[in-house]
């Protein structure tokens, strides 16, 4: 944890309220996000219990599996989920704008510009917490290899149409969520914790109720007390007042409320199956429906508070103005969305279970680049984030006290002005370390020449820098390209832009050190049903 976030947390403890960790919003927030609050069944990996899903905060769609171990009911749930999620996604697939992309021409091998479509906007999925992101990934994985009756008439348990497609999309969202700064799939706790520092641990920040209690406590209560209540307070029946944001449920709820309701439902179904005539069946069908309704009510009672909390979080985030470089990062999300849309349209197979060596290395490189870019962009967009970097010795701000013209040696001398900056920061500068400042949104580099004299009475030091570039081609620097005496400047020790890495070999050129080419892709079967899958 950085020093500034430790300080902010101490301050939060002292004041009883979360402290801002950012002055602007560093993540894209869609005007019409799809909020998804899933619940899972305890002890059954990947058996959903229910969910609230939708784009209208006042009218969420409640989906429920009244017996999570029943495959048919589970498929019905997934099919219903597809009915909500896929039309939402399709709503963004149509509107496109023309864009250019550089591609390698297969014939000449040259890099050329190609006209392509770019979706004008992209969908955004918001789940309550990081565990929700993992669950989206799990659902995606459990669905994308399923075969529908149409795809494979022999499939023993054919999936309803569109369920495999939903699996592919959820997989894409889950994979994209691993890219730093991306916003196609976002966990509300992560975004809130990015913008506010609470007086609790980062682990506790994963509890959406407690996090919101710190950020926005009731008028008469401290954040710490409200957070404690959110975590622990129970009603007369022993149920949590603020149910966990899921997908896991509280054991007290599972044991005391859910298990009896499921059992009632099972009994009613068994009785219905054993009915001997129509009249009796009608009667017992009524019991089944009542039992189903009871489970639905239970699921609704546990998901609704979380649903409201997510929307409260969205309200809080919308109060922050969007940071300048969020748009640029969202454009990359749109590229990602467009790319997957095209792969689906082209009839490509679902994402493989495991990445091959080249894909894995490419993904890791891309994410490391995005992480470095995100760190730099957040600091450049937000003085509070920059303050943290300054405190860590990775940047410094100050006033220009002297500018001396100097030139490079060589046949055509270029301007290399020496700029003296007075700063009270303590950057970790070594000789000839490069530093960067933003000049009209583009980085201008300078190198550290040395300190001038000892620190003054107020702790200020004089740093001499040599400006290296972005001053035009002439002998004299262009107007406005060199800091002037009296200017306030902010230099960073980190680079503002990320260079692209080297190109890796194509997967079919995988070298012997990495196992050689992976071979032809084979269609991957879905997980085989086990004894436990069948009731």
């Amino acid at each position, binding site marked *: 944890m950085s020093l500034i976030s430790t300080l902010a947390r101490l301050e939060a403890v002292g004041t009883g309220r979360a402290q801002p960790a950012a002055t602007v919003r560093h993540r894209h927030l869609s005007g019409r996000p799809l909020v998804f609050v899933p619940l899972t069944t305890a002890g059954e990996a990947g058996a959903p219990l229910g969910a609230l899903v939708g784009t209208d905060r006042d009218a969420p769609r409640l989906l429920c599996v009244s017996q999570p171990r029943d495959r048919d009911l589970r498929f019905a749930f997934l099919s219903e989920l597809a009915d909500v999620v896929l039309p939402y996604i399709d709503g963004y697939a149509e509107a496109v704008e023309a864009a250019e992309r550089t591609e390698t021409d297969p014939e000449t091998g040259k890099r050329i510009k190609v006209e392509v479509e770019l979706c004008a906007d992209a969908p955004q999925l918001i789940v309550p917490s990081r565990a929700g992101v993992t669950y989206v990934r799990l659902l995606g994985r459990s669905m994308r290899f399923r075969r529908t009756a149409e795809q494979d008439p022999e499939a023993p348990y054919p999936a309803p149409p569109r369920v495999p497609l939903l699996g592919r999309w959820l997989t894409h969202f889950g994979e994209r969520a*691993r890219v730093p700064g991306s916003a196609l799939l976002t966990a509300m706790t992560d975004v809130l914790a990015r913008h506010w520092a609470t007086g609790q641990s980062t682990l506790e920040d994963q509890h959406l109720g407690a996090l919101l209690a710190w950020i926005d406590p009731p008028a008469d209560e401290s954040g710490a007390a409200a957070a404690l209540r959110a975590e622990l307070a129970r009603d007369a029946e022993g149920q949590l007042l603020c149910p966990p944001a899921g997908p896991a449920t509280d054991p007290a709820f599972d044991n005391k409320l859910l298990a009896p309701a499921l059992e009632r439902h099972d009994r009613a179904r068994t009785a219905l199956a054993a009915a001997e005539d129509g009249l009796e069946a009608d009667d017992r069908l009524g019991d089944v429906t009542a039992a189903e309704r009871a489970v639905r009510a239970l699921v609704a009672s546990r998901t609704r508070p979380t649903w409201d909390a997510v929307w409260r979080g969205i309200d809080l985030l919308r109060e922050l103005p969007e940071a300048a470089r969020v748009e640029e990062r969202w454009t990359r999300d749109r590229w990602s969305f467009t790319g997957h849309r095209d792969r689906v349209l082209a009839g490509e197979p679902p994402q493989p279970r495991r990445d091959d060596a080249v894909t*894995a*290395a490419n993904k*890791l490189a891309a994410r*490391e680049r995005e992480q470095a870019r995100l760190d730099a962009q957040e600091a450049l967009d937000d003085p509070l984030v920059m303050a943290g970097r300054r405190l860590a010795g990775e940047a410094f701000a100050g006033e220009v006290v002297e500018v001396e013209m100097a030139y490079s040696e060589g046949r055509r001398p270029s301007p290399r002005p020496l700029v003296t900056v007075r700063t009270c920061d*303590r950057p*970790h500068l070594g000789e000839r370390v490069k530093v960067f400042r933003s000049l009209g949104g583009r980085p201008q580099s300078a190198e550290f020449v040395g300190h001038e004299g000892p620190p003054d009475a107020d702790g200020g030091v004089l740093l001499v820098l040599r400006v290296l570039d972005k001053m035009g081609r002439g002998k004299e620097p262009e107007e406005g390209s060199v800091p002037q005496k009296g200017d306030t400047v902010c230099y960073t020790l980190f680079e503002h832009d990320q260079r692209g890495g080297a190109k*890796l*070999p194509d997967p079919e050129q995988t070298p012997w050190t990495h196992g050689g080419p992976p071979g032809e892709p084979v269609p991957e079967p879905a997980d085989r049903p086990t004894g436990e899958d069948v009731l």
Partner: protein
Amino acid sequence: MTTVFDPGAAAAGATAAILRDTLHGTARGVVVDSPPGAGKSTLVVRAALELAEAGRPLMVVAQTNAQVDDLVLRLAEKEPGLPVGRLHSSDADAYDRALDDLPAVRTSAKAGDLAGLPVVVSTAAKWAHVKADEPWRHAIVDEAYQMRSDALLAVAGLFERALFVGDPGQLDPFAIVGSEQWAGLSYDPSASAVSTLLAHNPDLPQHRLPVSWRLPASAAPLVSDAFYPYTPFRSGTGHGDRRLTFAAASDGSAPDRVIDEAAEAGWGLLELPARRTPRTDPEAVGAVAAVVRRLLDRGGAAVSERSPGPTPLTADRIAVGTAHRDQAAAVRTALAELGAAEVTVDTANRLQGREYDVTVVLHPLSGRPDATAFHLETGRLCVLASRHRHACIVVCRAGVTELLDDYPSTEPVQLGTEVKFPDGWEANHAVLARLAEHRVAWRS
């Protein structure tokens, strides 16, 4: 009857076997594990010269520019007439200007300019941008355990066969984003190049350099037991071959007493009272600086097998190692105030591969409230505890043993990954137990 261990013969035997497999073997790769100071660089230079002599075009892959420059200098020193190419990036100051004075060394940012030279040396990052129609017959990959698997993937297409040399006990490569998704895959891009290589080619010959020439007889057993329990090594020198003496007698202060202890035993622990502190613990930083100042003031002289007479212990023969960069910065500031700014102060990552007579180490767990995976990492402690030829002085707050007991390793177990032995918890305990025998309490 006892056989006398002859370190010179053991090392020569290992080197001969490595060169035989490299030059005449049939396997596409040869892996060499080298403990700290076991003559890895010497081996690389020797292998490079023999491959060049055999007429096999050779590319050498190192991890940092400093390592590349160092290798080129060593090659030129050993064989001044051998044409060597130094491939560098197009940045300003991409390579050490000292290379410009070497007549046989050609530097360029373009691989094409260096085509046909018997040896071309560069970093893995630069090699990754090279496109070659014809692969090199042979490659040497230096510091292969510090190279990430994805970096090897980017360059492995450039060579037919390779010699991989590295130290498995040092810091593992790391990624700045999570990579759990690929944990357990043989080609996990964040794993080390050697683990991927061996996972796919388990039959490659693996060798080990058995003798550390750097570590003194007092240090080799501890470092070997704590960090290389299954691949032990010995020191090349015996007890009494190296001596550290001081012209000025001790003034009885804690720094002087710990210096005397370390001069005598090879290890010294300067223990400050237990306390939770920020990373840049001012007292501990002050203690480190005080020890360094006294080392310089007392006129130290080091006797070793390298020279007949004692060599003075000057500022360039002393280094300070820390876990974090801000700690290094704090120590540098403190040393500058004491007029000892020329002493090297750096983090474990940057001290890898370097060697000094005396090192002063700020213990990674000193003053911490918790023991995270970063601070427990075996490689970090191993690097810090194995940079010295004579003595190592550790500055630490009391209570680290209890801290370790409060924080057993709790990293999630990933299926399919190789468990690394020893874990940081155990290695830390082993080192602390030994240091406790050489404890000097700080009295302020």
